[in-house]
Each structure stands twice: as structure tokens, then as C-alpha cells.
């Protein structure tokens, strides 16, 4: 499945629009409880663990979106956007959405 945040696919034609497909995941991200993160809050610098955690969560959200696109018969998702919102104290929702399309040469 082709995932792109462009509105078009170079060299291909969009044959059919199937509508919006979303994917999301909610993760706890409470930094205050983490010892290393607490240390980094004093010394400054990158929180590698959290970078990886969020990266992984985004991949999961992307996976959900792809699954849904596949289930409605799409072979590509275009115009993909990511968004992050904090749902509760210490939790964030990672949301990804795009338009499911069928592309052909």
C-alpha cells in the first residue's frame, strides 16, 4: 500500500476516491515518573526512550489506518496528516488520517 502526504501520485492516476480513513492510538507519556527523564529535565538533552515510544506509537496508528484502507478496497492513502493531542494528564493521542484512493497507471 502506498502512503503519501502528497495530493497526487507522480505518474499515476486516481481512479476512485473512497473517503477519509483514520487511525489512532492513545499512549501514556508521563515523563515525571521516569527516572532518566527526570534527570534529563535537569541536565537537558534528548529523551531517546520517548522519541522511540512516540515513533512506535505513530507506526501503530499508521498501521490501523492502512488496515482500514485495505478493508474498503483502497490501494493507496494520499494527503496523510499527523496530529497529536493530549487527551488527559500524562496521555497523548497520536492520530493519523488521509484519503483512501484507488490508483491506476
Amino acid at each position, binding site marked *: 500500500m*502506498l*502512503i*503519501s*502526504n*502528497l*495530493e*497526487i*501520485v*507522480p*505518474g499515476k492516476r486516481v481512479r476512485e476516491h473512497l473517503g477519509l480513513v483514520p487511525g489512532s492510538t492513545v499512549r501514556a*507519556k*508521563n*515523563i*515525571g515518573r521516569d527516572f532518566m*527523564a527526570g534527570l*534529563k*529535565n*535537569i*541536565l*537537558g*538533552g*534528548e*529523551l531517546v526512550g*520517548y*522519541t522511540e515510544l*512516540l*515513533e512506535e506509537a*505513530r507506526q501503530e496508528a499508521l498501521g490501523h489506518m492502512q488496515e482500514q484502507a485495505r478493508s474498503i478496497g483502497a490501494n493507496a492513502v494520499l494527503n*496523510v*496528516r*499527523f*496530529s*497529536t493531542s*493530549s487527551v488527559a494528564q500524562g496521555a*497523548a493521542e497520536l492520530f493519523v488520517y488521509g484519503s483512501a484512493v484507488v490508483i491506476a497507471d
Partner: protein
Amino acid sequence: MVDLIVFLTLLALGFGVGRYNEARHYRSILRREALYKTPLVIPEKTPPPTVPTPKTHLVSGSVVISVDYFKQVLAALRGIFRGRITSYESLLDRARRKAILRMRERAHGMGANMIFNVKLETTSISKGSKGNTGSIEVYAYGTALIPPRDAMQPS
């Protein structure tokens, strides 16, 4: 008294180590930015029509970065007087450049020569002491254009 000693120790640690870390971080960013010239980062929505047609791939880079204690205190003080908070400006600058760098490195690994429709997203991850922003996340993403293998000559 003990509180004061702890506070001053944290402040000194934040000032010393934080400053060293930032300088090191900037050095590495500058070095790596000079290293990768090929995947151009373009915030344009649609790529120009080219022959031969490139393949596309979604690429992204992210970074979670924390401000040091000294700068948090400095920013809190600035909050009283108003004005620019330069300590956070450098934090955001570093985070954005690092995120873009990671995205470019991934695109470079795929053999891409351009990244289109680049978007940057910034989120505040945690609150530090006194409700100040402790760490932020920057996420950069875009679509990498990978030219077909037989047309790799620079134009």
C-alpha cells in the same frame, strides 16, 4: 536550608551540563547538516511533473528534547518580566533541525533526491517544575521522491 542547597546544586548542574550538552548538540547538528546535501527539503504541495517519474515514500523524523533546569528557572523569571525567552527559542530550534535531519537521513538511505510537502508538528510533552514546559516533541514528515535507478544522473 537543605532545599536551598538542592536548588542551587540543580541550578549549577543545569547550567554547566546543560550548556555543554547544547553546544555539543549544535556541533553535531551543524556537522550532519553539511554532510547531507542531496535530499532537498521542499514544503511545496505538489512536485513538478518530471520524466522519468519518481517513486514516492512517506518519510519522517522525530525528536523529544528536554530543557535543562537552569533554563527552566530563567524562563520562569522571564515570565514575570515579559519579553523573549531565548532559552526556549534555542530548544525549539535544535529540536526542529534535528527532526528534519533525521527525516533527511532516512530519505537519503532510500536514495531520494527530494522531499516534498514537508510538515512540522510541535507538541509539548511534559510540564516541569511550576508548570513550565519541560520537554517538547517535534515531528517532521514529508514525501520522499526516489528517482528510478537508471536515471540517477544529476540534472
